[in-house]
């Protein structure tokens, strides 16, 4: 398709230059600066000191950081799994023509369009011990008054539930689009051969949907792994550190305690993990079906 018109070789490069320059300014530059920052310490009121790999060494022995990674992992795996299964279910439920289909679809995607901060507000109103609809329902059912967000056992599941509420629509939309774009012939042939719905689903729908499944799981898992907004609004990591996900811990370290060097080191560690996981996940999916 490449064409050298009167614009010559330079026109396309000129068109794309601003974007690439900005992209570099936002990746290579800060990442380089981040590596530099992670090798330093920032004592209050003094200029930064070069400390070599000390921050990374502390990272390896920091039990709090490890436990926050664990929390993040639980959050990511549980939330993504539920979102995928529920989204797939909804997509299968709504893939055929149905009255009010447009209206139902529009309603189902509302949570996704709401700012995460506002989602936090919505669930604060539901979880609140004194006013919450959710708490009221629990009290009516069990006779016990619970403050979900200040319970060490319930806070994390409560946050996961919020994430599931907000992002199941995302899985639903993408899987629905994927299902609807599949060619019809193999399904018709299978039905003519007398295959049951379950067999068709396992041996036809899922394998054919594989690329879409990979994309949707990757996008969601990566987002969940760096979740911040709802946790910040709902629990700030509490009670104690039971819901302190990695991003929140980095935020507190760098911006509440001004330990920029250690915060940057943590962020670099997290980045490496994210890259490793997404590579592994992509590879696993490519070979497993």
């Amino acid at each position: 398709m490449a064409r050298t018109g009167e614009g010559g070789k330079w026109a396309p490069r000129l068109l794309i230059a601003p974007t690439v320059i900005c992209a570099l300014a936002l990746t290579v530059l800060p990442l380089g600066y981040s590596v530099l920052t992670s090798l330093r310490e920032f004592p209050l009121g003094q200029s930064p000191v070069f400390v070599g790999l000390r921050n990374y060494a502390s990272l390896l022995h920091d039990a709090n950081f490890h436990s926050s990674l664990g929390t993040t992992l639980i959050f990511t795996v549980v939330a993504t799994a539920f979102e995928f299964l529920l989204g797939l279910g909804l997509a299968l439920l709504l893939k055929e023509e149905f009255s009010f289909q447009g209206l139902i679809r529009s309603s189902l995607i509302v949570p996704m369009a709401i700012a995460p901060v506002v989602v936090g507000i919505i669930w604060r109103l539901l979880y609140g011990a004194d006013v919450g609809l959710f708490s009221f329902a629990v009290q009516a059912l069990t006779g016990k008054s619970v403050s979900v967000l200040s319970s060490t056992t319930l806070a994390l599941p409560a946050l996961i539930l919020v994430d599931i509420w907000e992002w199941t629509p995302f899985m639903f939309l993408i899987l629905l689009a994927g299902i609807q774009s599949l060619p019809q012939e193999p399904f018709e042939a299978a039905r003519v051969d007398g295959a049951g719905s379950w067999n068709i689903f396992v041996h036809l729908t899922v394998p054919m949907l594989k690329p879409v499944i990979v994309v949707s799981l990757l996008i969601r898992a990566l987002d969940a792994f760096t979740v911040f907004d709802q946790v910040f609004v709902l629990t700030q990591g509490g009670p104690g550190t039971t819901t302190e996900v990695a991003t929140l811990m980095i935020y507190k370290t760098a911006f509440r305690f001004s330990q920029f060097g250690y915060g940057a080191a943590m962020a670099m560690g997290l980045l490496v993990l994210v890259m490793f996981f997404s590579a592994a996940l992509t590879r696993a999916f490519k070979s497993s079906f």
Partner: protein
Amino acid sequence: MPRLSVTQRRRLWFFTRLTLIVLALAITLLPVYWMVNTSLKNQVEVFTSPPTLWPQNLTFANYVNVFTRRHLGTYLFNSLVIVGSAVLLSLLMGSLAGYALARFSRLQQKLNFWVLAPRMIPPIALVVPLFLMLQEIGLINKKLGLILVYTAFNLPFVAWMMRSFFQEIPVDLEEAAMVDGATRLRSFRDIVLPLAAPGLAATAIFSLIITYNEFFFALILTSTPAAATLPVGTAALIGKTQTLYGEMAAAGVVAAVPLVIFALLVQRHLVRGLTMGAVK
């Protein structure tokens, strides 16, 4: 289980489906309704037990309060300036890049990665250095700082989306115009751009939604009403109002409503937007 006739089975499936769909709708919409409901109640009614399912004494006081006492108007204004500028700038530069990527395939192979890379890096990995860099040039707590960050962040998205829209426009149309003596620039302006307009609009609304809802960068790079955006202002309000749930809900409604409407407008392109063209 007794054998059911085909009609019975069909009817059973129909009712199961209906029940599940209604259940999904209720779970999705009830929490949102509850926010709207709470925002229209007075402070006494908010704490009534059992909770009232709709406001018994409808009041708009919470909405008046968040604007007069809680600076919500200022935050809204900041958001409009910052989001508007960033979206405009990124559309201008990004759609040109998208066009180049769509029409010059050699270029595309070389630059795909660099255009997409910023999108793959989680914000948390960039925020510490960005904060320190902006601090050094005095752009912390300034609208300009956030505009620059948002523009750069939107660019890859816009370029990638517009690439997929431009690719759908047949090259023949442009070639025909160029054979007739139009320059590439003219054929771009007169033929390609009008055809890509719906895609451009959808891309604009998408970047608007993403930028307007963004919280993490805004929280760290702005903090005072001088530059803080609506999500940051709303989050700060949660800390300040404590148990003034009505005001909290009203702020939430103000922040959410315009965006939900926008999202419904671009529904048709939603999947493409969410996966950056990976799934259409």
